[in-house]
């Protein structure tokens, strides 16, 4: 099995230089992750604020470099990529960020975010061809092109804006989509629709997805595998069915126990937080198959 994107024992810390008064903060501590070429899957990276999940996402995108370990795309270290290799990586690994509004320039029509990647990566030679590509991508995420194109970002709903971002990522025919909290700024009823289109991309088009989230319910629904991070450390990882249905680490147990479920009969918060607090720092359990 050859690996598509692989993080090998990456560690990233901030602060704590010789002249710094502040203590060093290890945001991501010795974490590995592997996406295979042959087997496109959805991996959820889950944790709360400060767990290091966004730092890990930035490492995987090559936006920052690790202090230790390496991130490799098709066997090539991201740090050493140049020119065409880097361009290919930038096209084949597409991010989708949390705030769909922040990704737009409010003065440009939404067409701009769709046509500029086509232009920049020279994906189409004619205007007609570009228009067809854009329409196809919009339809894939469940939007009607005639109702979407030609509008300004504020004229679309939050859910539509985020789906346009998914369509933009799709235009580039990526091999990996890295979605960092793609639905946390969106109404609960619209989350389903967006996550459903992400799931389809994986199943129908064979795109691997890294889904960074704090929401274990949606992670359970769409992912194949899950990694639970706490303070930069991997506490537990494995197939979602194993980790969510039978959590072994106290932190995972606390997280699952704290999810308010939409069923008044399943009472929330059975675990006493003051009792579990010390247990949370227990070392991680690593990968669990069962």
């Amino acid at each position, binding site marked *: 099995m050859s690996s598509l994107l692989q993080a090998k024992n990456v560690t990233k810390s901030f602060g704590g230089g010789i002249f710094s008064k502040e203590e060093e903060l290890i945001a991501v501590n010795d974490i590995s992750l592997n996406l295979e070429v042959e087997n496109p899957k959805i991996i959820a990276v889950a944790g*709360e*604020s400060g767990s290091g999940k966004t730092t890990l996402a930035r490492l995987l995108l090559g936006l920052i470099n690790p202090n230790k370990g390496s991130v490799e795309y098709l066997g090539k270290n991201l740090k050493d990529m140049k020119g065409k290799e880097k361009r290919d990586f930038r096209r084949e690994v597409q991010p989708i960020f949390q705030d769909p509004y922040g990704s737009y320039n409010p003065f440009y029509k939404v067409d701009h975010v769709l046509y500029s990647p086509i232009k920049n990566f020279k994906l189409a030679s004619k205007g007609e061809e570009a228009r067809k590509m854009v329409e196809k991508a919009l339809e894939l995420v469940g939007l009607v092109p005639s109702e979407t194109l030609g509008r300004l970002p504020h004229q679309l*709903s*939050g859910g539509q804006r985020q789906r346009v971002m998914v369509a933009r990522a799709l235009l580039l025919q990526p091999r990996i989509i890295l979605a960092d909290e793609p639905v946390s700024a969106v*109404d*609960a*009823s*619209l*989350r*389903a*629709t967006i*996550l*459903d289109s992400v*799931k389809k991309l994986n199943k129908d088009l064979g795109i691997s997805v890294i889904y960074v989230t*704090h929401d*274990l*319910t*949606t992670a*359970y*629904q769409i992912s194949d595998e899950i990694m639970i991070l706490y303070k930069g450390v991997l506490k537990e990882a494995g197939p979602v069915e194993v980790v*969510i249905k039978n959590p072994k680490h106290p932190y995972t147990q*606390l*997280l*699952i126990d*704290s*999810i*308010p*479920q*939409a*069923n*008044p*009969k399943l*009472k*929330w*918060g059975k675990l006493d*937080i003051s009792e579990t607090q010390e247990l949370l720092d227990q070392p991680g359990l690593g990968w669990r198959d069962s």
Partner: protein
Amino acid sequence: MTSSSFKGLRVKDLQVYYDTPEGVVKAVDGISFSLPQGKRLALVGESGSGKSTLSMALMRLTRAPGRIAGGNIFLDEDDILDLDVEEMRLARLSKISLVPQGAMNSLNPVLRIKDQILDGLFDHQVFGSKKITKDEQLSKVNELLSAVELLPSVADMYPHELSGGMKQRVAIAIATSMDPKVIVADEPTSALDVVVQRTVMQTLGRLQEGLEASIVLVGHDMGLVAQFADFVGVMYAGRMVELGPVNSVFEKPLHPYTRLLIRSLPTLENKEDFVGIPGLPPPLLNLPPGCTFCTRFGRENKNTPPWKEISKDHWISECEVCSDIGK
């Protein structure tokens, strides 16, 4: 429930309109409910359904171009819409108080926490006209902080030194500082992590029970609502479409919108295909009379559906044209 001896919050045919150059936007259009003392009501609905507008109107904090166009808000027996501006100002915090959305932005960044807590108390002359010592002030602050499980040292801190959950606790301490009868909490935990959310909500619930206050929780997280509330009110396009006890609404939702809302929620129980709610809510500008939910599915009912009590305390706006959707 007889109106003469009713204890709690009673809203009758409340209307909040926004006057815009294009016409009137009826953000809250004739909402009625009774919330007995000590009970918790949660208002849910998509963005733009009017739930935040309603919560602001309960505090009489509606800002221009919005205005309360009609209706009553009874606190026990008194209609707070009859109070003059000064009386209303004094009623806020002491009778009805607000836990705002995103406490991050509601605390003053350049004041210490203790001064922000004391500010409201001084304004309402809680300590009377007598001069009280710094120690007495501080002991009141510490009492309020310990009620929300914060350390006394927080009193001397500034908001930026606190985490999101701690700030939300400070906001709860301020909101409960004068033992109000009604607490309005507008998405109090929407920016918090799950574990923090749970502890903050448990603190809020414990204080509310201690004070025997009623609480109006505004939120779009149906999970939180299921866990926290006694009653659920489902809002759609400025109107209440279903209102009932939490168990009854979740077990047997009667309105199609409630059914779709509950179905769109992912669970940890079993993996299913996601079903979102198709379409978008209608624009509220110059909304025609009739069933607002029908239009989302290309149907039409020109008559405004009647507000009916189907079983005990369980009300819906009953429209025969769209009642089969989501069954």
